[in-house]
């Protein structure tokens, strides 16, 4: 069946294809995306809004709602007991046992990720109860312990608070506490700091890194903030218009970006040491994913585009060990 994974790999997504069948046409939101997550590492998915980062991670546990559909690909996942399964093929009931237990999510907006009618303690207890047969008292103690772990002061009191009684940063901590309640092997953090102010952002990132070390879990971090990537990640996947265009370890990527898109993206980050007249930007707009351009999807905006770029899809080339790029510039002809 090909259901084998390297020793150190937690998740291996291959050729994932997600389409949305809308009134206007079929949106190819994610096309042939492949990526790996190894044990105890932080992997970043970077890209601008609408490039398919979120859809990719939602598709891993099939949280895609109609009219979206996962059309193809596989997502091999190594469970706690060592068993390797394809998340896209197992029955719903099986998948439910993995969600929130072995794969957990932290959503972008902490204020709407919590049900306003229940206390934060209830949210944590509910997560535990869904997967582990523990008695009520232990669950309550665990909830307090988890809140302490995510550095919420006066955890014993906070456990009884409703979401509206907490600040944004606190809420995100509570969401994280819920996510780690069952010690997941993989945590998917979908722009966890976007709605928070800068000082709180740093705290939350610090917290995620600490928890990752403590629990030995892997993290997929979705973000469009390159500063956050540099700060936290081990490896980076750059996505553009539903495709992975470049991936490598974080140092390589910032030192020697290969894909023109990555290069321009890095140039667009303002340097605080230089006085600048205008912010750099990438000219043009993201192509419509209903009829994506036949060749490289970045070709229409790429200053280095050649004829071949507009006709044929670029192959993925390993330029240096561990540094892959999907661009004709590096193809040996």
């Amino acid at each position, binding site marked *: 069946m090909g259901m084998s994974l390297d020793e150190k790999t937690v998740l291996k997504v291959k050729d994932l294809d997600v389409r949305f069948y809308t009134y206007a046409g079929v949106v190819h939101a994610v096309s042939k995306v492949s990526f790996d997550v190894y044990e105890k590492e932080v992997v970043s998915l970077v890209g601008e809004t609408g490039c398919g980062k979120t859809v990719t991670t939602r598709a891993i*546990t099939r*949280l895609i709602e*109609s009219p979206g559909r996962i059309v193809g690909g596989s997502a091999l996942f190594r469970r706690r007991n060592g068993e390797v399964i394809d998340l896209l093929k197992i029955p719903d009931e099986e998948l*439910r*046992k*993995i*969600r*929130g*237990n072995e794969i*957990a*999510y932290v*959503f*972008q*907006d902490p204020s*709407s*990720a*919590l*049900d*306003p*009618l229940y*206390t934060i303690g209830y949210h944590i207890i*509910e*997560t535990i109860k*869904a*997967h582990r047969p523990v008695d009520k008292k232990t669950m309550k103690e665990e909830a307090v312990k988890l809140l302490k772990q995510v550095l919420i002061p006066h955890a014993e009191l906070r456990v*009884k608070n*409703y979401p509206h*009684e907490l600040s944004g940063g606190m809420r995100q901590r509570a*969401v994280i506490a*819920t*996510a780690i309640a069952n010690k997941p092997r993989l945590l998917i953090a979908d722009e966890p700091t976007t709605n928070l102010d800068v000082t709180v952002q740093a705290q939350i990132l610090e917290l995620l890194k600490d928890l990752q070390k403590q629990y030995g879990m892997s993290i997929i971090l979705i973000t469009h903030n390159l500063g956050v990537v540099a700060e936290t990640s081990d490896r980076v996947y750059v996505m553009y218009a539903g495709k992975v265009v470049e991936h490598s370890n974080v140092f390589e990527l910032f030192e020697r970006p290969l894909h023109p898109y990555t290069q321009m993206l890095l140039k667009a980050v303002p340097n605080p040491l230089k006085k600048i007249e205008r912010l750099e930007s990438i000219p043009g707009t993201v192509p419509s994913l209903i009829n994506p351009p036949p060749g490289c999807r970045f070709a229409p905006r790429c200053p280095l585009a050649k004829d071949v770029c507009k006709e044929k899809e670029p192959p993925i080339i390993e330029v240096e060990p561990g540094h892959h790029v999907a661009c004709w510039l590096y193809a040996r002809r």
Partner: protein
Amino acid sequence: MSETIYNLLAKAIDLYVKIRVKFDPEWDIKNSSRIREWKLMAYAFSRSPIGIVGGFLVLITAITAIIGPSIAWQGYWEYKVVENPDLWLKPPCLPPSCSGGPLLGTDEWGRDVLAMIFYGVRISFVISLLIVLIGAPLGILLGLIAGYKGGVVDEVIMRITDMFVAFPGLVLAIAFATVLPQRIRGFLEANTQIRDFLLWLFGLRPQEYGQLAALLSVLLALVIVWWPIYARTVRGTVLSVREQVFIEAARSIGLSTWRILIRHILPNVLSPIIVMMTFDLATAALLSASLSFLGLGPQDPVPELGFMISKAGQYFPERSWHIVVFDGTVLLLIAFGWNLLGDSLRDVLDPRTRRAIEVRAKAKKKKR
């Protein structure tokens, strides 16, 4: 007046909290914000004259319904007119101009109209409650499933709902009234425990189980035309609630569909439904009475309000105006009470208007 009512309600809340604390010593601390909210609801309710009048009427209806059959001084099965022809359709005897006679007059069997009203209120109250308490949950359940599942399930459930909405309730009730009673009768004869329980519920004698069958067929006909409105309303609200991130979060932690529906979606759609149910209690009472008025419900001797008005029609207005007026007024007050109560509940259960009431009250205090 509103002060006393608020104190009364606050005391009731405190009592409930005390009971909960007996079982769980920290319950009041854990739920302090909930208790505060309840008190605010009580406050908002006590500030609304409409709500007080409605609550009062409903309370009287409920009390009459509960104790009515046991305090009625005449059985509805006693045909007094057989022994004493003078009692035939006696006019009301209201003080101060008259004394000694039956207060609201008698009907064509010589029965005291007031005593019959006590039985009638019980029947009307119980049947409206049953219609709403069976019909609403059925509709809520289907609406939840349709709204949450979407796709084919939604389509199938909602098209069936449309069919039932399109079906005229009256015609269905007539069809049921001709076909069902015999079958229900057979069922009641076979299941004596259910029969006795239902007879007790409606305040009827065991001999009247044939009439009970007619009453149940009215109930069934109304339940069947009742649930679709709930299914539609709930589905609409679910469609917006299920898009909230906390529902996706609930799915991402691996909760079952059932648990998400009951624990996270239902409580978030419930308050408009409660208001709707209150209004519907009035409509159900009126509709069941009108079906009986048309002769589709129970027959003699069961003193159903609608049926009594219908019988009085024969001698109207010369000899029986009092039956029509008094029974009609009772029906009106029942419906009026539920409607007023529903109106104020809508304000009280909606957190936004509730806050507005609070703010207004504070502003008034300052002015003084």
